[in-house]
């Protein structure tokens, strides 16, 4: 059958295509994806000759989960519409969260400001100019209480984009839930907690790799017992892609990070099935629809295999690659910003066709500022239109069986394995990071992409083609960091004089001793948080004990 197709295709090429090309050349010599991957003119059954349906694709909810992790997928339950948001003070962000929930958002996602991400309190010298800018400022449990005021933590799930200080923010969340009368085993959500991609791409690290991994495995152990519904990590390709990686690099480096975390858990004495079901993933979705869909499908298939064969996980839940998707911030243009709504729609569609469990759609103004309310609403509405009007949710994995998508899925998988094996040979992801391997690969890809734009090999509408005189930019959400900083400092000072300072000191002392030893840090962090120790105070203790990471910086 395939031989006949191949032969017929040859005939088609000679007879039809060649004469067409003679009359009129194809528009380009080489057609490539956003990531620069060459694409053929046509795919046929001959491109996927070895496809064994039951082995490679199987059914939704069945190994290797190529077609989705749930048997009914969106027919059973839609993805969680989870818009990442946070700015200024806890009071302001709380108002935005309530608004988003009121408008039909189904989960929360907290953006913290840079001082919080880096473990500095708002009154730190390095926080000047940054307080409340890119996210909400949280210095203590008190801010966290305000942030979730009136939001029932037993009903809403919350994702928190926090990495180096993730344990502290999670402890604060647990404490707020307790105050609301919600038991720890009733709360659900995610902390990003993925430090490896910080070293690779986003660069918001504090401690060196080894103590960072210890904090993470402490959290795996603690959460599996105390907050079993919590996703202890969101292994993220998003930032890797934003830093300029190709789709395959995003896929490969993310899964290689996942392997490193799984191995770290095992090395810390945990059973794989104890913590693997709570590992979750977070991918980027760029403009090239089919490439993205293939990436998501390949990711599920690779991870299932890694878990089952490499780590010998027995539980089916351990084999699942559950993931959140965010549309590609780096694809948004500062020019003709209305066009970004269209880009976001295509990217969101790719996430849905790829079987995502939750989705954030970017706002059109994000190449310029933090989303204004109206732009954030349109972004949410985009998801709702895809969910309720487009019909793409009616059947599972609608692109499955497309010769092109299956071939692309196979190729992505194969190329990703190439990277994963190479990283294994280097001694794993931490060793690879120390050699600067993923960083260099990403940098090269980013530079190639930029050059392709400059040479117009890649067209970006409104940037290097179809330019026009622009009207004035719409009003953005402007945050005056000095005003926010002053508010935060006032709160800090008031709390400092109100709290039991000797108790704080005592808690921090115990934390320090635990950091020096081998005990699980989580209970000590929780105790400190409940005593209203500041984020910066807790991080300082750990910084003193663990040291700070120094980047080997190359360009």
């Amino acid at each position, binding site marked *: 059958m395939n031989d006949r197709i191949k032969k017929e295709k040859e005939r088609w090429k000679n007879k039809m295509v060649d004469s067409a090309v003679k009359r009129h050349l194809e528009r380009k010599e080489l057609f490539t994806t956003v990531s620069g991957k060459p694409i053929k003119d046509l795919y046929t059954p001959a491109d996927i000759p070895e496809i064994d349906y039951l082995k490679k694709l199987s059914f939704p909810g069945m190994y290797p989960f190529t077609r989705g992790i749930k048997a009914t997928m969106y027919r059973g339950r839609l993805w969680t519409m989870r818009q990442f948001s946070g700015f200024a003070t806890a009071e302001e962000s709380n108002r935005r969260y309530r608004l988003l929930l009121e408008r039909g958002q189904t989960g929360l996602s907290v953006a913290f400001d840079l001082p919080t991400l880096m473990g500095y309190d708002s009154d730190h010298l390095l926080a000047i100019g940054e307080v409340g800018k890119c996210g909400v400022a949280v210095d203590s449990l008190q801010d966290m209480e305000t942030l979730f005021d009136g939001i029932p933590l037993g009903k809403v799930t919350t994702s928190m984009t926090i990495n180096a200080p993730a344990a502290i923010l999670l402890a604060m969340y647990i404490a707020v839930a307790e105050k609301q009368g919600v038991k720890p085993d009733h709360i659900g959500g995610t902390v990003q907690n993925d430090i490896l991609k910080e070293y690779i791409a986003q660069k918001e690290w504090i401690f060196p790799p080894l103590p960072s991994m210890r904090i993470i495995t402490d959290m795996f152990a603690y959460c599996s017992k105390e907050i079993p519904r919590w996703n202890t990590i969101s292994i993220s390709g998003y930032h890797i892609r934003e830093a300029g990686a190709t789709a395959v690099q995003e896929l490969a480096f993310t899964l290689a990070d996942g392997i490193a975390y799984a191995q770290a858990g095992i090395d810390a004495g945990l059973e794989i099935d104890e913590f693997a079901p709570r590992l979750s993933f977070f991918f980027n979705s760029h403009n090239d629809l089919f490439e993205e869909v293939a990436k998501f499908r390949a990711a599920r298939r690779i991870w299932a295999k890694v878990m089952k064969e490499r780590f010998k996980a027995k539980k089916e839940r351990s084999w699942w690659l559950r993931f959140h998707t965010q549309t590609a911030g780096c694809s948004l243009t500062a020019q003709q910003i209305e066009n970004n709504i269209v880009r976001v729609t295509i990217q969101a569609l790719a996430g849905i066709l790829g079987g995502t469990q939750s989705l954030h759609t970017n706002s059109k103004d994000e190449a310029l500022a933090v989303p204004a309310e109206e732009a954030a609403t349109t972004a949410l509405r985009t998801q709702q239109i895809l969910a309720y009007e487009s019909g793409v949710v009616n059947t599972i994995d609608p692109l499955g069986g497309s010769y092109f998508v299956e071939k692309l899925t196979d190729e992505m998988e194969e190329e990703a394995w190439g990277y994963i094996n190479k990283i294994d040979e280097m001694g794993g992801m931490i060793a690879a990071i120390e050699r600067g391997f993923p960083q260099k690969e990403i940098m090269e890809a*980013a530079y190639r992409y930029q050059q392709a734009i400059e040479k117009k090999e890649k067209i970006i509408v409104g940037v290097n083609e179809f330019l026009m005189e622009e009207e004035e930019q719409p009003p953005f959400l402007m945050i005056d960091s*000095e005003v926010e900083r002053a508010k935060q400092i006032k709160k800090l000072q008031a709390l400092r004089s109100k709290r039991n300072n000797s108790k704080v000191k005592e808690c921090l002392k115990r934390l320090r001793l635990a950091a020096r030893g081998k005990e699980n840090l989580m209970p000590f962090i929780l105790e400190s948080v409940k005593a209203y120790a500041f984020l910066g105070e807790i991080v300082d203790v750990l910084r003193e004990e663990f040291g700070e990471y120094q980047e080997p910086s190359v*360009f």
Partner: protein
Amino acid sequence: MSPSKGKIRVLIAKPGLDGHDRGAKIIARAFRDAGMEVIYTGLRQTPEQIVTAAIQEDVDVIGISILSGAHLYIFPRIIELLKEKGATDMLVIGGGIIPEIDIPKLKQMGVAEIFTPGTLTSNAIEFVKEKLQGK
């Protein structure tokens, strides 16, 4: 005499707490490929560190990459420090997520140009070469 005499010397700096360095690294490399001498500070530099490095390295251009929104604090501080040290001849340029409305304010302070997302590196290179003509 330095072997690089005649080459434009550029310091690319990442101030503030933000770690998004894709833009900084791309522009650093593009300037280098355009024949300039480029020094990259690495992440999380204070304005003081940036100005000290610029003077030590005797650069012609300081390129600041900032995406966090802290530009209205960072730029004036750098310009002020340059004035204090008598190094006002250095060309200060910037790039990143900076709303249009802030650009006139920054230029008034003495920033030569702000390159927003979507800028081609060739435009930035041209701008620098033109400004430093005769140097």
